[in-house]
């Protein structure tokens, strides 16, 4: 290909734009993990007795579990006793009532990231429940949502205000002992968001949470719970960036979705955490458990993700299609550059009759990046007329990267229909030639082709995210061709 090596190297070495650190005093729990720490976190958040018990149960289960090794990722051993499991910005002591009361330095952080809250409020009509480290500092639009009965609040508040909701649904989709990281999260989760959409309500706006990991050496353990009652609809956006740090930061979130009869949940993610430098130093370890339960008939859960950040990504947003005629969707673009490793995919478990699922996964691997699509489609005996379509494509850029595809297909019902197809190739020379011939620069041509490659997924994103996602892909890949 015609681009010179230096040119490629220049672009591949593009630094992380959002890498900066905001100085805000943190309130730490001492490093290490024990029953005392779990109790400390629970106490700090003034949680009821039952939740503390639940956490302790999870902690004890976690002690018996082993870190999974089946994913195609390698990283230095994590010392779980070296990390802090709780950090809260001090400003939380007198929680702000409105944006004016929010620490200006914090607001400046959002400013730098290009997410001015109030601007968003007005222009985009998005309610933002911003999570700065572990404690939510600003929640907007709550009144408007309350009018229609939608609950959208930080987890710690929901525990106090709607304990019955939390008790009923917490751990109902991702059980405590589901896996090593979900057990860890269950024991020490710091905060997160809770959404409840009542019967027949169409949530009037896109709900959004911006995550940002700030303090060094504190893993962030988010817990998100979204419940859509019968006939309701909600679209939830999650996006994140993190400042540049040298130590590896651990993130083990758990997201649970429950869609009742005729309900729909659309969950979109743009993930751009610090991926580490070009030698693979630093970067976020992202071990996430996301699962949705299509509980009722005709319910629908749709996952869309754009994964461009993190040093290690271990993430499999899944759908359990229990209700008859329920639908599960998974749209994903994952990009790994430099030394990034991503092992991601989905699991579709068909239990109900006439259940349908669609999986579209696009992986882009550049530099020394490693990319694995790992997916599972299971059609159980009773899932009559179930239907699945899977497509997972990989694009390779540079001769040091790698792409793996590992789909598991289990079918136990003869009336179901299942298709899986996958391709792996690099950017075609003829495609590049075609663009170049029409006067596009090599960089623009590659960006165009990559965006075209990912378009099927990007078009699933809500407007607000689609723009950001396209920009992210462009920044990370322009001209990264060899």
């Amino acid at each position, binding site marked *: 290909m015609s681009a010179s090596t230096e040119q490629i190297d220049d672009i591949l070495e593009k630094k992380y734009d959002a890498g900066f650190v905001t100085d805000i005093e943190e309130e730490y729990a001492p490093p290490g993990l024990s029953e005392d720490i779990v109790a400390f976190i629970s106490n700090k958040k003034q949680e009821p007795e039952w939740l503390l018990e639940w956490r302790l149960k999870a902690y004890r289960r976690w002690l018996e579990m082993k870190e999974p090794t*089946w994913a195609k990722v390698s990283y230095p051993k994590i010392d779980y006793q070296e990390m802090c499991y709780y950090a809260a910005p001090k400003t939380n002591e007198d929680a702000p009532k409105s944006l004016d009361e929010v620490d200006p330095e914090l607001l400046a952080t959002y400013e730098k990231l290009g997410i001015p809250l109030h601007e968003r409020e007005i222009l985009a009509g998005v309610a933002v429940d911003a999570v700065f480290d572990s404690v939510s500092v600003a929640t907007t639009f709550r009144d408007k949502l309350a009018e229609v009965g939608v609950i959208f609040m930080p987890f710690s508040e929901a525990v106090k205000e709607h304990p019955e909701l939390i008790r009923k649904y917490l751990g109902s989709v991702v059980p405590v002992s589901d896996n090593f990281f979900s057990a860890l999260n269950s024991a020490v989760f710091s905060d997160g968001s809770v959404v409840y959409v009542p019967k027949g309500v169409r949530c009037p706006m896109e709900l959004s949470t911006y995550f940002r990991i700030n303090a060094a050496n504190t893993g962030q353990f988010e817990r998100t719970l979204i419940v859509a009652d019968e006939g309701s609809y909600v679209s939830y956006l999650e996006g994140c960036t993190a400042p540049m740090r040298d130590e590896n930061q651990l993130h083990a979130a758990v997201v649970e979705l429950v869609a009742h009869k005729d309900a729909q949940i659309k969950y979109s993610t743009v993930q751009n955490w610090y991926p580490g430098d070009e030698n693979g130093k630093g970067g976020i370890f992202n071990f996430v458990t996301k699962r949705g339960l299509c509980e009722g008939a005709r319910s629908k859960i749709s996952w869309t993700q754009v994964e461009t950040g993190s040093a290690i990504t271990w993430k499999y947003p899944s759908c359990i299609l229990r209700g008859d005629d329920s639908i599960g969707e998974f749209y994903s673009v994952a990009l790994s550059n430099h030394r990034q490793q991503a092992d991601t995919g989905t699991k579709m478990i068909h239990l109900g009759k006439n259940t349908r699922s669609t999986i579209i996964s696009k992986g882009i691997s550049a530099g020394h990046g490693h990319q694995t699509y790992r997916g599972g489609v299971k*059609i159980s*005996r009773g899932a009559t007329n179930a239907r699945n379509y899977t497509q997972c494509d*990989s694009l*390779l*850029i*540079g*001769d040091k*990267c*790698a*792409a*793996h*595809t*590992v*789909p*598991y*297909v*289990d*079918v*136990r*019902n*003869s*009336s*179901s*229909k*299942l*298709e*899986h*197809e*996958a*391709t*792996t*190739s*690099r950017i075609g020379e003829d495609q590049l030639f075609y663009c170049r011939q029409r006067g596009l620069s090599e960089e623009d041509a590659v960006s165009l082709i990559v965006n075209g490659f990912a378009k099927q997924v990007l078009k699933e994103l809500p407007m607000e995210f689609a723009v950001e996602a396209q920009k992210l892909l462009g920044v990370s890949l322009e001209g990264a061709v*060899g």
Partner: protein
Amino acid sequence: MTDATRQTLLGSLPTSFDTGPEWLRALRGRAAEALREQGLPTKRTEAWRFTPVRSVVSAEFSRDDRGVPSLASSLPEGVTARSLRQVLQAEPELLEGRLDLGGAPTHFAALNTALFSDGLWIDVPAGTIVERPIELTHAIPTSSDSSVVYPRVLITLGDNAELTLIETYAGTEVGPLTNSVVEVDLSCNARMSHARIHENAGLQVGRVDVRQDTDSTYRSTVVTLGGALLRFDVRCMLQGKGAECQLDGAYLVEGDDHVDHHTTVEHQASHCRSAQTYRGIVSGKGTAVFDGLVVVHRDAQKTEAHQENRNLLLSETATVHTKPHLEIDADDVICSHGVTVGALDEDQLFYLRARGIPEDLAHSMLTYAFLESIVDRVSHEPTRARMREALLARMPHREEIRGVT
């Protein structure tokens, strides 16, 4: 010759090997050591997840040394077929480095390596083109006693040599275990077609390892007609530039059958091409497993690799597990894979019914056609006919189907 004492598979491993040449003793020793360390596969072994062999592992077998495959046809000129045991006694140096083509063996292959007592070595010298296929029959002991046989075959082709091999594994009894290993070594520009028919046979674990040099071609067609527990692994190592392999398979799974096919293609050199096409029909309470793997090594640029697995599920109680995976470490490649699982096409059925064909015959015609498309790809006409017959023999309405095809 059946050994009267019955032992578990692992229990039958001797503590030391003291016959045969030094290198063979070392090879068997390593295999035995690996087995003692890893044991035989369990449900937790990824490659054996869907094929439970616990009953085989815990069962006691008596060793049967009659597991030597026999030639069903006379040998063409130039080709030699010798007993492994005799060569190992008389000229062991000829076989050095050739009985572990696939690298360090694991599990059942390791068991075979440690315990095989005899076998067959077929050698086609450089430049020899064998036009008539060579046929090998592996008769599985029909004694109701649980016995185990360890067939071992080595096939070597010199530069520019060409061979068609038909292997038949036949037997009807559930009880005896066949644990076979076939190794194929293809030199530059050698071409081999390998047809393998698994007749309904009790317990079968088979493995084929193929090493391919520059510009060599290996075509394998496997027809599996049921099996209480059948596991077949084929692995091609494309080590020379421009080598090509085509792995095809058709499986018919009925009753309580459990049939498991694993294919692996390792692209170790550049400019190689591979294609895998497996099709299966699963009915009754049968279970079919397919696991296909393409590995493209770092320097294997200009690779083209394709993989396809299609399954028809014909009953409410049948199960299919399929896992076609790709591991790609080079960038200038074209790779694809596809899987489908479903029932017979309603439109095709309607087409036949509209032309006055009874429903059950239409079913048979479509299922037969589904598998026949694999057999159709065999270029050697008599072999193709043999395989067609084997398939037809298992089909209802075979006479009518014969009439229309």
